[in-house]
């Protein structure tokens, strides 16, 4: 055993990750971050102190054994690292790319107190990508039972719940309203951040667990949740329908041609391939001067997509400041590098008509920061007499979503006054046997939080169905023998390695 690492003995600088240079990547849809090479990953793994505290595990919404998988990388046991990851996370190649690590695991990393924190997300991605490239797949021994589980929505929460229930031996069917599975991973996150082949590969892993996917099925309208439990023979149902209707501001000019929600823009591009118009039939209608309202991850995606589709000028318009922007740090940084123009402390008042029903600009006002509001962020207040016109021909709204009303309209599910599904701590809803998680419960959140919700719901669902809960977190090795007093091979997810 090597002698104990200290903050002085580890490599001091965070290992850089290769990226496409901004000038080139701003004009293509290939992935921006190229990921670690093997040597870089091993070097970065050496920066983990293996501190006894393990704050990173607590910082992770699903409690990944982070030092555990990093140690395996250090030993060059990459398959071992993958096994540790897949004990808790379903989609490492995805989460390594899209998690806001700086506010989660990396934000509390001990190394980060003195140096730059360990690049946990990059290491996770490295292992996830290697698993895809090598065809590794953690297919456990599954002892089938006769229980049937229906999952509504094939996004991250539904997928996580589906995988856990399939591993527990249930017959799982995932219902997806679109023609392709993946939910927000497919329609929302653009390819330069999360390539479709990564989404395909991770979904294929879920399918390999025996999960059936049914596309073009709009639950609520094609059949109701109640019908799933009665006529269709499902023993339990998970609702993970995700984000809802886009929010507009109700200011003048919102009906003009050239005003779209980020959801519409991204769905046209990602799901419907409108960037290949006219080879694909779905049109886009993006202009040359694009203003995106909002500064979250969706706004960053809309901004960077517009740039890649040939807009000359792409502007982020946000009523608060840089510090308050909710986007993931890396996305903001990448957007700045690529030449997005940021108009902080700028609030749109009206969208201006060119006389032909198209956008010619936006009337805006300057803001300044006042006292903190309920969210803890300083409240923006208008600066008197600061109105000005911002020239643009496209306006994209990326200021959040409301709850989708379909399941509320078609079931007896209890809803909050804002239309989200009411669920308790174990994510059980007001209907016996129906669980819910992700954005339809919490409002807009992250991929990993949705995955975490899917797993929490799966654990509750297993209790509800009388199944032994062999997961959440899958027990670490040293405690394995004591879990319900059962030997690992008696539990229903003993891992076998394939490939």
């Amino acid at each position, binding site marked *: 055993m090597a002698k104990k690492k200290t903050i002085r003995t580890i490599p001091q600088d965070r290992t850089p990750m290769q990226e496409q240079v901004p000038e080139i990547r701003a004009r293509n849809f290939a992935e921006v971050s190229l990921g670690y090479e093997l040597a870089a990953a091993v070097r970065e793994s050496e920066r983990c102190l293996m501190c006894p505290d393990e704050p990173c595990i607590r910082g992770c919404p699903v409690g990944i054994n982070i030092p555990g998988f990093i140690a395996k990388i250090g030993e060059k046991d990459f398959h071992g690292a993958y096994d540790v990851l897949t004990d808790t996370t379903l989609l490492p190649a995805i989460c390594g790319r899209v998690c806001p690590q700086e506010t989660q695991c990396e934000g509390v990393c001990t190394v980060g107190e003195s140096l730059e924190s360990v690049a946990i997300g990059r290491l996770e991605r490295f292992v996830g990508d290697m698993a895809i490239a090598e065809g590794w797949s953690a297919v456990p021994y599954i002892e089938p039972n006769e229980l049937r589980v229906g999952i509504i929505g094939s996004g991250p929460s539904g997928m996580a719940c589906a995988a856990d229930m399939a591993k527990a031996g249930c017959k799982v069917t995932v219902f997806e*309203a*679109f*023609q*392709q*599975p993946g939910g927000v991973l497919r*329609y929302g996150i653009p390819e330069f951040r999360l390539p479709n082949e990564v989404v*395909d590969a991770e*979904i*294929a892993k879920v*399918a*390999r667990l025996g999960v*059936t*996917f*049914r*596309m*073009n*099925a*709009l639950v609520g*309208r*094609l*059949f109701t949740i109640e019908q799933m439990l009665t006529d269709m023979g499902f023993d339990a149902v998970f609702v993970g329908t995700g*984000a*809802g*209707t*886009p929010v*507009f501001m*109700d200011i003048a000019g*919102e*009906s*003009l*041609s050239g005003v*779209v*929600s980020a*959801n*519409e823009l991204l*769905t*046209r591009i990602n*799901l*419907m*391939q409108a960037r290949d*118009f*006219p*080879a*694909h*039939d*779905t*049109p*886009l*209608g993006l202009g040359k001067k694009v203003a995106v309202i909002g500064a979250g991850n969706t706004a960053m995606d809309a901004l960077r997509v517009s740039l890649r589709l040939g807009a000359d000028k792409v502007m982020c318009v946000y009523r608060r400041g840089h510090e308050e922007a909710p986007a993931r740090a890396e996305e903001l940084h990448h957007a700045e590098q690529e030449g997005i123009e940021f108009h902080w402390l700028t609030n749109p008042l009206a969208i201006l008509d060119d006389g032909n*029903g198209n956008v010619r600009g936006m009337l805006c006002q300057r803001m300044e920061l006042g006292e903190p509001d309920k969210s803890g962020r300083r409240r923006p207040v208008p600066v008197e007499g600061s109105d000005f016109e911002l020239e643009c021909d496209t306006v994209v*709204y990326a200021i959040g979503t409301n709850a*989708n*009303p*379909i399941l509320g*309209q078609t079931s007896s599910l209890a809803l909050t006054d804002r239309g989200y599904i009411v669920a308790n701590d174990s994510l059980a809803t007001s209907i016996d046997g129906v669980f819910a998680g992700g954005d339809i419960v919490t409002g807009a959140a992250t991929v990993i939080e949705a995955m975490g919700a899917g797993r929490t719901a799966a654990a509750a669902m297993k209790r509800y169905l009388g199944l032994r809960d062999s997961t959440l977190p899958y027990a670490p090795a040293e405690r394995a023998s004591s879990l319900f007093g059962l030997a690992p091979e008696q539990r229903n997810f003993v891992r076998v390695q394939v490939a």
Partner: protein
Amino acid sequence: MVAEVVPNAVPYEIVTRTDFSDVTYLLEVLEPDMAKAAHPGQFVMVMSHAEGERIPLTIADFDRERGTITLVVQAIGKTTREMQRDLIQGAHLYAMVGPMGIPSHIEGVKKVICVGGGLGVAPVYPQARAFKEAGAYVIGVIGFRNKDLVFWEDKFESVCDEFIICSDDGSVGIKGLVTEGIKIALEKHDDVDEVIAIGPPIMMRACSQFTQPYGVHTVVSLNPIMVDGTGMCGGCRVKVDGRTRFACVDGPDFDAHKVDFDDLMARLKRFREQEKQVLDRWEQGCRIPEAPTMSTPGA
């Protein structure tokens, strides 16, 4: 696309195809689950092939015993003309999702005028039938530009207590717009509970303006541009009573007297340029290349 994730390889079979005219055609699509679930007033989103666009089409009929959904389509743009060419009997749609939208309100109406303009005759038919089945007195008013475009007049008439057909040029029925037919009906009956009008936006606006002075509750079915149809993209937003509503999840039926039709019509023009571009490109691709002229130099 992951092959193992797609369970039904040949779904959504076209079991009947009927052409009403050069531009209007009927597709009867096999989808038993949807046929069971469908109600009057709902719509589907259709993709004819993997590179296609998602287009909303109002359900013109459903047959729970045959397990089918009937759509009536007008070939205007690239997608609908390509469908006209390719979707023969036995062909398959790539995707069809639905039934979407809130079903029309049928209960408690004693006397109703069901108005269909052109293609709108198809989606208003299942409502007329449902009203009839619910015991209402149904007055049908349908209108076409001319005799050659008429379809479903017998089928429609069979669910009506009174039936008026109008044409712009007088080649069939009374000469005039559907508002002429509504006028006849409203003058004869002073106890009409509701008027339902479906057709092109300009026709629905005319109906709405016409019934307003009579104070008769009037419902229109809006069909704005949509991408997903599930309440996610916001492309189908319409102004109703000064509020932003989403036709796909809050509609498609709305109180006609509260709908901002100018807003609706302006938004329908959003992609006119691209629609023309893709149609031109398609038409060029369709043209059979001229046979190369035989050149026989020296002969």
